[in-house]
């Protein structure tokens, strides 16, 4: 109950900000921060709870984005439809990849997901309808009321997507699925022998996680009013999703939020003050530092601090 009240408060606040005269740059930055939060949260459902590393975030994200583009170009579908369709396609991709590789050890799944990124990218490069390697310029329909710019409207949209992602992650964690996934992460063989249908559970997690990533990708083309394979399938999304979860802490739905918030805010600051390359470098360095020194992430550090101060 407390959770849902805070969700409502957050959404109302978000709407308030979106309608207030805040500088446009804020929305630009916030869009990326919220994207990072949603992606990390989605990633964590499989990666954090079940311990299966998905390097393929950009593949799922990109499938969502391209699904949205195709629906928009073909039928002029409205944004909510695009997002739902992006989620469905992301989930389907998750199902396919999972079925193919989730029976194997985690490393094979991880490599398989890298493969999926490049395969999706190659497909889009060769698909003229969506612009091929050149990309496709989109003519956006007029922005919907009550928003007066796209940045504001999409800020609200991505905030809703992020809240949905977090709520689903929270639900999964607390439900029977969550306990099974944790058992899988701790010892897959013992989980299976304790009656956990491990493959089915991993597939469920993979579908949910992939679906959410697809939903996050769907509004991106509208945001940029452009789509192009190289940046859509960029490994930077992989490191953002992975980094957010690991730095924040993978055992709780709050971890990815904290991690992604810290990481993407830091990235925005560095991009503005130093350069685009350095911001990715910082993520890489932080990622390695955290896995080595603070494997439980910020949440773990916080817990340890709580315990020691007691």
């Amino acid at each position: 109950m407390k959770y849902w009240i805070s969700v409502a408060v957050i959404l109302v606040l978000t709407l308030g900000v979106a309608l207030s005269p805040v500088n446009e740059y804020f929305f630009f930055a916030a869009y990326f921060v919220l994207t990072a939060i949603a992606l990390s949260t989605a990633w964590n459902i499989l990666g954090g709870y079940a311990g299966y590393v998905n390097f393929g975030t950009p593949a799922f994200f990109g499938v969502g984005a391209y699904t949205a583009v195709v629906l928009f170009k073909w039928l002029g579908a409205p944004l909510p439809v695009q997002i739902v369709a992006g989620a469905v396609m992301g989930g389907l991709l998750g199902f396919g990849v999972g079925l193919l590789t989730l029976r194997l050890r985690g490393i094979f799944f991880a490599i398989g997901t890298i493969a999926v990124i490049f395969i999706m990218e190659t497909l889009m490069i060769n698909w003229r309808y969506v612009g091929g390697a050149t990309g496709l310029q989109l003519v956006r329909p007029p922005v919907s009321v009550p928003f007066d710019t796209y940045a504001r409207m999409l800020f609200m949209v991505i905030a809703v997507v992020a809240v949905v992602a977090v709520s689903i992650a929270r639900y999964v964690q607390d439900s029977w699925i969550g306990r099974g996934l944790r058992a899988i992460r701790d010892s897959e063989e013992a989980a299976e022998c304790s009656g956990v249908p491990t493959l089915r559970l991993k597939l469920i997690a993979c579908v949910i996680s992939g679906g959410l990533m697809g939903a996050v990708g769907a509004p991106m083309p509208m945001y940029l009013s452009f789509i192009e394979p190289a940046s859509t399938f960029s490994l930077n999304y992989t490191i953002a999703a992975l980094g957010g979860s690991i730095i924040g802490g993978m055992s709780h739905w709050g971890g990815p939020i904290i991690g992604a918030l810290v990481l993407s805010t830091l990235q925005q600051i560095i991009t503005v003050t130093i350069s685009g390359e350095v911001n990715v470098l910082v993520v890489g360095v932080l990622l390695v530092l955290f896995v080595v020194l603070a494997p439980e992430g910020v949440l773990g550090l916080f817990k340890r601090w709580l315990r020691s101060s007691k």
Partner: protein
Amino acid sequence: MAAILEVNAVSKHFGGFTALSDVSIRVAAGERFGLIGPNGSGKTTLINCVSGSLRNDSGSIAFQGEEISRQPAYVRTRKGIARSFQVPRPFHTMTVLENLLVPTAYVRHLKDSEGEAQAMQILTDMGLAAKARAYAAELSQVELRKLELARAMASQPKLLISDEAMAGLSGSEVDEVLKILFDLNEKGITIIMIEHIMQAVMRFSQRVICLDAGKIICEGAPTEIVKNPDVQKAYLGA
């Protein structure tokens, strides 16, 4: 007595290595059954095939008359086969109690409130109740072994396979674990004990089979087995 488990001509290969060749055993309901053999003789492979962690290459495995050798492990657990692991594999990010809630939820579909009550009962029976809120890292060797058995019991199995539950334990600890197993058997649970400690397995089992290099070399009452020259050869390497 009716057979609860029938293993028929089961073989298993890893690449060019034959881990099991043409193994057949028959375990009666309520029986205390011992499985012995030197390191690498195929004991663990055999019970992996029975519990479903591995698939046998040929032969059949029937549980309560039903062929199960193509079913995934979790289905077999739900049908009543539970096992412990030689190297304990606790769910280390969960408390002892939560460890037991995995099978209560996934095998018996109990709500957490009911599951917790039953899990506490099992922990009390095994003398682990005091550690219900502890994590695996805080447990001693013998407590870890008990947790393995307790988790297996939480699925209310008909057949319990105990894989070297006593390895590395002191004499009194061995007695403790043995008592638990005897108690479980009293309640009607069939038990297959895989053990390296001859003394324990001989005390416990009604019938023993000895494996060597993937083959059954003899079968019989504990007293006969100890005297068998093949067994002595296999163990002493003479």
